[in-house]
Structures are given as structure tokens and as C-alpha cells.
């Protein structure tokens, strides 16, 4: 029983990932349980750059889980450095983490994206992320009323 899983990405590359690292992904874990004997898995929607980043994260955190004595501080440092990547890569990583069901990575990336949305006005957000404004002024009034109803 090999301990390496061959992960094929959308752009034709194959990454060799140690099995326990790959199991950080709940999706892969499930897939492996059902397709026993196979050590290959293909992802048509995840490219190699994204996958490499995901593997990098999983490798580190898998090691952290196995070993004792790695400081909280160091983990935080890794996470902060890790998540400091160009926006388009960040977005692919977060969609990949969502699909692959890697909770910690997902939370980390979502928090990062949320921090880029924080404190901005709707106009600024639309400009930054190229979102079309399809709301009428009447809608805005309704939305403000609805928004006042939201609570913790």
C-alpha cells in the first residue's frame, strides 16, 4: 500500500503528496476510502499553482499535528506569511479549500479575504473586485431597512 497519492491538476501536472498530508482534506479522505487500491486522484478545477499552495499548507499543519512543541507563535507566523499571496491566487486557494474541505485553510483564507473587505464602502468594493452595480436607488432604501434588522 503506497504512502503517496498522485494528485493530478487541471493543467496536466501530477503532484506526489504523502498520504497523511492529503488526508487533511476531508474530501480526499472520503474519496480514498471509497476507491480503495487507487492512489490517484484528479481535479479538473484546480490548477497546479493552487494545488501546490494547498499542499504546502497541509504539509505544515500535518507536521504540526504530529509533532509536539511547535509554538503557537510559530504557527501564526507561518499562517500570516502563507496567506500573503496575490489576490487571484488567494481566491483559487479558497475555492480549492472549500471544495477539498480543509477547514483550517478555509477559515484562514476566508478571514484574509474578509479583512480586505473590511472598512470599505460598497463603491470601493465594486471597483476593487470588478462587481457590477445592479441595484436601483429604490433597492438601496429597501436594503438599508433590511440591514437594520440583522443582528448577532
Amino acid at each position, binding site marked *: 500500500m503506497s504512502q503517496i497519492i498522485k494528485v493530478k491538476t487541471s493543467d496536466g501536472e501530477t503532484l506526489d503528496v504523502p498520504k497523511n498530508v492529503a488526508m487533511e482534506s476531508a474530501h480526499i479522505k472520503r474519496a480514498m476510502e471509497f476507491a480503495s487500491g487507487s492512489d490517484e486522484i484528479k481535479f479538473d478545477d484546480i490548477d497546479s499553482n493552487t494545488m501546490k499552495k494547498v499542499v504546502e499548507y497541509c504539509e505544515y499543519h500535518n507536521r504540526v499535528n504530529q509533532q509536539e512543541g511547535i509554538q503557537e507563535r510559530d504557527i501564526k507566523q507561518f499562517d500570516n506569511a502563507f496567506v500573503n499571496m496575490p489576490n487571484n491566487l488567494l481566491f483559487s486557494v479558497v475555492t480549492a479549500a472549500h471544495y477539498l474541505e480543509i477547514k483550517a485553510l478555509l477559515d484562514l483564507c476566508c478571514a484574509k479575504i474578509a479583512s480586505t473587505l473590511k472598512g470599505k464602502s460598497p463603491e470601493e468594493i465594486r471597483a476593487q473586485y470588478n462587481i457590477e452595480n445592479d441595484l436601483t436607488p429604490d433597492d438601496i432604501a429597501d436594503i438599508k431597512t433590511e440591514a437594520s*434588522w440583522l443582528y448577532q
Partner: protein
Amino acid sequence: MSDTEEGTNQPQEQGSDEPKPAEEEKKPEEAKPFRFVPRQVKRGFRRGPAQPAPTIHSSSAFAPFKDDLMYKIFSFLELDEIRVMSEVCAKWREIIRTHHPALDLTGGTIKPLAVRSVLQSFSSIKKLKIPIQHSAILLSTVADNCPNLESLLFSHPAGDINTNISQNVAELGTLLQEEIQNRESHASHTDTQPSSSPQPTSTSPEVSPPPESNGENSVSARPLSPIRSPKAILPSGVFNKIPDAKLKDLVTKCPKLTTVDLSYCSMVTDKGVSHFSLGSSDLRYVNLNGSLKITDKSVQTLLQRNISPQANVSPLIFLGIAHNPQLTTLSLKAIGIACAQSKTSLKSVVLNHNPQFTPHDLTYIIKGGAGKEYLDSKANHSRKQSNTLTSLSWVERLDLSGTNINDSALEFILSFTPTLRILLLSHCPQLTTQAAEVITSNASQLLELVDLRGNPQILQGDLEEMKCKLNIVVWSSPSYL
């Protein structure tokens, strides 16, 4: 405008804006004879007669994101920021509407008839707060449209601290400040004397509120008598008029309900409360303060109910039975028995303003109660009966304000509540100056807050000593509340 979003099979309730031709236009679109259209689609967001559900522009960076993922990102933001997000585009608004779990409709701007369409747009509601004056009308709407509902609360004009389920000292402190301000503003409207200045809001909740600077002169802040009728609690005198039948509806249709505020419900009886023992009801926070028609039977039902035969434990965490002069020691004994048999994880017991209980009665919240000789002779502190007595081992918040508890009973109760964190004893006329001493000697290690307001018989000196020895927050304003 949100009414234009309703499916055509539902009557337009505020349809003054909806032109008839548009309605007819919708009908053929949806009345395809042999296709089953799932309900979700019919309730979907419609911005106008035949427009499709909003999609994000394909060049947007967020285009490939699924809705769940988008909301997960929003969930890392503060509430104010989420409100801003809902103004960015129609898609984001829709995502927030369908994923945000908590809604507060008590602002007064929404008409009861419009609530149905609102609850249909906000389809993942878990926590809901609705205006108390419309509770009876709205309850069926809520039951029908919120299958995932976990918590149902009502607006209480007085912001009564007793309706709050919190075990958090800071939160209670803030609530208390609000309550004081509410009463002051209410009092200043109804009294002719000059009003006292409002409590400074800058006082941090961690510090005990400063003694009123205009102590005896604060006539406008009408000193409330210790034993207050429920009606006096609600300045607007508005009772919650939910009938038993609607309660049954709610319990059946919202199986995930864990928190319900049934305080000041003038029509709920034991029958209504008995519905909570139906099927999968998992009620954890129940407030029955001031619901004058319930009897001891309700209390017993709530405490003895098991959620499953295997789990032999009632999940009840908060029980509020303040302002219920019709309850007897049977209720108190039920609390004691349930705790003794480890049949409950009760953390908060709110018993204030129940003047019918004598100090001895109150000791029955510990199973077995205190022997008469224990209470009569203060010198005799023997614990002969301790073998048969079991502690209230989970209780963290105990509210005995406005009751007839005396020093001995207090001592007794304190010695059997080892996990107590919050002790509320305002307006207890039978406590004496010894009370502070009693608390200091017997209170649990975990005690964080003691409320001794409205007890002028307890001197500042005693309180200071208590504060020093125990290092806790003490509320000790001498005037009202």
C-alpha cells in the same frame, strides 16, 4: 418593494405597488402544467416581473464562488460591515438574506402583514426577535416559515434584566445600565418633579454603579416597591398574548427550538407548556416570569422532561419563574429534586419577586431543604443533615431579588451552590447587616457578582469589606431598582 418578490401563489399582502399586468405575466411563467417546481424557487428573490435570480457579473473576481463560501467570508465580518456588504450588489444582498441567521424585527418599522415575506426571503433564520404587541398574530407566520428556528425572543419595552438569559457579568451590567436609563426616562415623563440626571453611560459595567448623588432627593426616579406586580415591570403594560394552541404549533413546526421567551404571557397555561415535552423538543432556555396562569405543574414538566430515554437528563439550562405568586414550594422542590438526581444541567434559576415563599421555602431549592432548627438558631451551624442534601452543582446564576430570604436561608443555600457565579439579592427586606458576612464566608470560589441594591439595611462598610475579601463586582446603589 420586497413584496414583488413573492411567488404568485401567495396573495399579495401589500400589493399596492404591484401592477396587475405584471402579476398575470408571472402566472404563465410558473404555471407550466407538468413540471414540478420546488417551493424554494417559488419563494425566490424576484426583482421585478420576469427577471431571473441575480447573478454576479462574470468578470467579477468573486464569480466562481459558491454562495456558501461567500457567506462564510461575510461571517468573519462585524455586523455593521455585513450590512455594508448587502449594498454592494443584488447577489450579495441575496446571499446575506438567505444565509444570515439572526433577525430583529422589533424596530417598529415593519408591519405584521409584511413579516411573512420577510421571513421567506431570510430563509435560514435561527434566532428571531419580534415585537411583543404582535406576538399572537406573528407566531403562526414564524412557525410556518422558520423551520430552523432555535431561539425566539420578544421585545420587552422595559428591557427587564430578568428576561435576559445571560450568564455573563459584563452583559448583565450593560443591561442593568439600560434598564436604569429606561426607568428614568419613563419616570421623568410621568412625574411632575424635576427629573434626576441619567446614569452616566460611561460607567463601565465592571464597576459598581456609583451611589445616586441625589440619593433621597431622586423623587422623580420613583422608588419601586420591592415586591412589584408584573404589570408594573412593563411600562406599557403590554402582556404577551400568545395562546396555548399557537405554542403547540410553534413547537411542532420548529423542532430545533432551544430558547423561548414566554415571560409575561397572560394566556399561556400548563397545557401550553406541556407541549414542550412533545417529541424532539430540546428546550434549554425557558422564561416564564410573570406568566400568571401557569402552575407548579409547568415547572415540574420542564424539569423532569427527558429528551430521550437514554439521555436521562433534562437539557434545561435557564429557568425563569419570577413574578409568579401562584407558584408554591412544589416548584422549588422540583428544582431541588431534579438537581439532586443529576437530571438537569440547570445553570440559571431566576426566582425573584415571589413574595409567597418564606425563607424556609426557599431552601427547598436544595433537595431536602433546611431543617427548621438550622434556620432558627443562627449559632447552631451544624451540618447534620448534609448526608441527605445534594448541591445544586451546576447553578451559576441565582436570582432571589425581592424575595423574603433571610440570612440563615442564604447561608444554607450558599453552602450548597459551589459553582455560583452570579447572585442577585436586590430588595430583600429580611436580610440584615450579617448578610455581607454570610456571603463572604459561604460563597463559592467562582462568585463574580453580587447584587445588593435596594437593601439600605446593609451598610456600605459591610459591602466594602465584602468587596475586599472576595474581589468581586457588587451592585449597591441605595435607591430604586
